[in-house]
């Protein structure tokens, strides 16, 4: 068996209350590696694509990769995958924390959950076996409360939990791991809720199958640790968290402001920045299992209207979406909004984006105070925002409209709403403005879960956090506001970056170490003997597989578009006057990806990648 794998997967049927193990051959593992790539392969092979995402027929997959549990930095991760109830297409959401390594130690590379329980249940997995138990006493509790209770029962347990948003089938619901780590995007918490699955609890103590020994691994490990120690990026992430981007991004035109309509709010950004958080509210940095970077923030707000007990702090995305996007200059209010989203179990990007939409429509008079139940949704009114966060999680009042995300909300609200949403394929864009970085615009158009900054390494390469000329042809420095040369950069950055979610390694660690080090560690663990070309080819297969999945669900070239607002130039800020040349970007990119005019992978490319089954389905 290939190294790094526990050697078996768990299949659970909640309708039947049954479970069984299954295995996959080395040939499959070598082609699809693990994480979200392997999940997509399993989904295509075994499940109906057209089932309602909130029906029992939509499987929920929790997958690790071969590096998870090895002790290599940044490999605590796992991917949760399903068909998205928010977008209707492929959904995956990678998460750090503690769950992944323990699942491996409990003997499983992944879990596939089918069906629907009659009532709320907990799925528990440990070295000695599997059990399904009643979760009635946990149903209704928020993620922090449920996590605390589950850890009271077993303090060593690692838990995945949904909150009220998932229970109420909000299509922007997230899944939380140990309070501070989330599979946030694309509504996977609602899929879990639709199965009446409140929690998955793992406790793994076995050391076998997760320890990679050997001189090659030791050397790669030692090299990685030194590279991380020498990395200014890693240092910055440790000191300021991902919110280090706020100050830098405001200068370069990366940070969206006032629902993507403004630029250059430097004072606003400074209040919300990583240095400010560090200076005023940080109590300590927190790390996922085996991570020397420790980018996670633990914060506390002692007093004021948004006082918050010590707990997980916001990432950059949250600081932008509940800060600059809403014209809110108060970081304590962002911290409170983050805590509420964590507790209720909602994706902060989707939730904040939906509220930004509502604020804009309120300003335009398209939503009245009466419709909001008396809330004054003026820009920056964070008391109203926090109440709307709560209503969204519980589908109360106007929150019921926002609970399915900005695109669903815009459809229901009509008027100018849809023109005010920045999304691709139904998923709200993360907080990186494609007008400031045209490559990111292309990446949004082509990412397989909709607008996404985590299905590739474009953020690192286009913004200059990393340069890997040994891996593919690239420059040290790219100008953000040009589309020339970006298609190839995006294509290559996808092929390398998408591997993060199959190998299950953190982006920040991958940015901080050389590709040679990652390759050597991967080979030392798996024994696959991949060179760079093999790695990039595997990434190509991963992307193409998921594209085919979406093609089978009706996605075509017509869906590869940036919305009107993202194509409207700003008058000020780092991205002033700039919009991506989408025609150029798509033309060059389609050629590189071997996509036909419909946006389908060409048959010869599918064959070259060993995706013959997919070819048969796309070309039947």
């Amino acid at each position, binding site marked *: 068996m290939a190294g790094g794998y526990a050697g078996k997967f768990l299949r659970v049927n909640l309708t039947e209350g049954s479970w069984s193990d299954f295995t996959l051959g080395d040939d499959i593992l070598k082609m699809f590696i693990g994480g979200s790539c392997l999940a997509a392969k399993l989904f295509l092979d075994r499940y109906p694509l057209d089932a309602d995402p909130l029906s029992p027929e939509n499987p929920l997959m929790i997958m690790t990769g071969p590096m998870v549990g090895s002790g290599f930095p940044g490999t605590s991760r796992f991917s949760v995958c399903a068909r998205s109830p928010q977008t209707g297409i492929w959904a995956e959401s990678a998460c750090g924390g503690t769950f992944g390594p323990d699942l491996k130690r409990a003997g499983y590379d992944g879990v596939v959950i089918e069906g629907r329980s009659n009532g709320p249940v907990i799925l528990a997995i440990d070295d000695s076996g599997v059990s399904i138990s009643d979760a009635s006493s946990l149903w209704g509790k928020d993620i922090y409360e449920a996590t605390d209770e589950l850890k009271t029962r077993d303090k060593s347990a690692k838990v995945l939990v949904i909150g009220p948003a998932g229970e109420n089938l909000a299509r922007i619901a997230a899944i939380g791991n140990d309070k501070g780590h989330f599979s946030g995007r694309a509504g996977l918490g609602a899929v879990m809720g639709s199965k009446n699955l409140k929690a998955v609890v793992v406790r793994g103590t076995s050391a076998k199958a997760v320890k990679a020994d050997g001189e090659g691994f030791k050397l790669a490990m030692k090299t990685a640790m030194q590279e991380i120690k*020498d*990395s*200014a990026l890693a240092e910055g992430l440790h000191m*300021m968290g991902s919110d280090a981007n706020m100050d830098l991004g405001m200068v370069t035109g990366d940070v969206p402001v006032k629902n993507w309509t403004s630029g250059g709010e430097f004072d606003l950004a400074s209040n919300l*920045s990583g240095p400010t958080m560090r200076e005023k509210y940080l109590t300590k940095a927190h790390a996922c299992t085996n991570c020397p970077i420790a980018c996670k923030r633990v914060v506390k707000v002692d007093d004021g209207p948004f006082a918050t007990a010590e707990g997980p702090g916001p990432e950059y995305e949250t600081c932008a979406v509940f800060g600059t996007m809403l014209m809110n200059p108060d970081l304590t209010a962002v911290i409170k909004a983050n805590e509420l989203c964590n507790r209720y179990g909602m994706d902060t990007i989707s939730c904040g984006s939906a509220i930004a939409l509502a604020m804009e429509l309120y300003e335009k008079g398209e939503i009245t105070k009466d419709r909001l139940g008396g809330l004054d949704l003026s820009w920056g009114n964070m008391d109203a925002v926090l109440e709307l966060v709560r209503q969204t999680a519980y589908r109360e009042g106007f929150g019921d409209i926002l609970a399915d995300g900005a695109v669903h909300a815009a459809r229901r609200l009509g008027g100018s709403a849809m023109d005010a949403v920045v999304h691709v394929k139904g998923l709200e864009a993360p907080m990186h403005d494609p007008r400031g970085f045209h490559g990111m615009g292309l990446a949004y158009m082509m990412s397989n879960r909709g607008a996404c900054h985590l299905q590739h390494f474009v953020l690192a390469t286009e913004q200059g956090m990393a340069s890997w000329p040994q891996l593919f042809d690239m420059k040290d420095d790219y100008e953000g506001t040009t589309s020339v040369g970006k298609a190839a950069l995006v294509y290559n950055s996808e092929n390398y970056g998408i591997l993060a979610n199959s190998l299950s390694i953190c982006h920040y660690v991958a940015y901080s170490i050389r590709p040679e080090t990652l390759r050597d560690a991967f080979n030392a663990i798996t024994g696959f003997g991949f060179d760079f070309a093999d790695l990039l080819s595997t990434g190509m297969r991963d992307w193409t597989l998921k594209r085919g999945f979406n093609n089978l669900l009706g996605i075509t070239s017509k869906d590869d578009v940036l919305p009107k607002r993202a194509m409207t130039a700003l008058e000020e800020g780092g991205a002033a006057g700039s919009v991506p040349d989408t025609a150029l970007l798509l033309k060059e990119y389609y050629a590189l990806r071997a996509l036909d005019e419909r946006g389908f992978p060409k048959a010869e490319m599918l064959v070259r990648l060993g995706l013959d089954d997919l070819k048969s389905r796309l070309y039947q």
Partner: protein
Amino acid sequence: MPIKAMTQEWMDAYKAAIQADPDYKSIAKDWEGSVSLVVNPEPARNVPEPIYLFMDYWHGDVGDFVVCDKEKADSAKFVMTGDYARWKQVAYKELDATKALLQGKLKMKGDLPYVVRNIKTVNKVIDILGKVDTLWPDGNK
């Protein structure tokens, strides 16, 4: 008339350019502290020895701008080190200094969050650097 790079005359010109910039004073109003640049030698590019440059910035004003020894360079609040060719790329705006730092092409000793918070000041002084009429040791582009 171009001035030979990394000489005292060049430092004087750089200082004068900063003082003459209409926007520098307001952009750099919050900046406190000296910066030194350490230029690693590259004999093949006519830089046979390390070069140390010390620059004192204070709330929009500038103080000492001198070619110095290692000891004085090390005394600065921020010490940035890189190969000669990298510094030249930065001056020519072929390589953004922040990106160079993140990619490990330049190294910095000092308070990174402070630099991030004041990134507009950093960008401004580099922008002015590129405007100094310079004669580089290995020739101009």
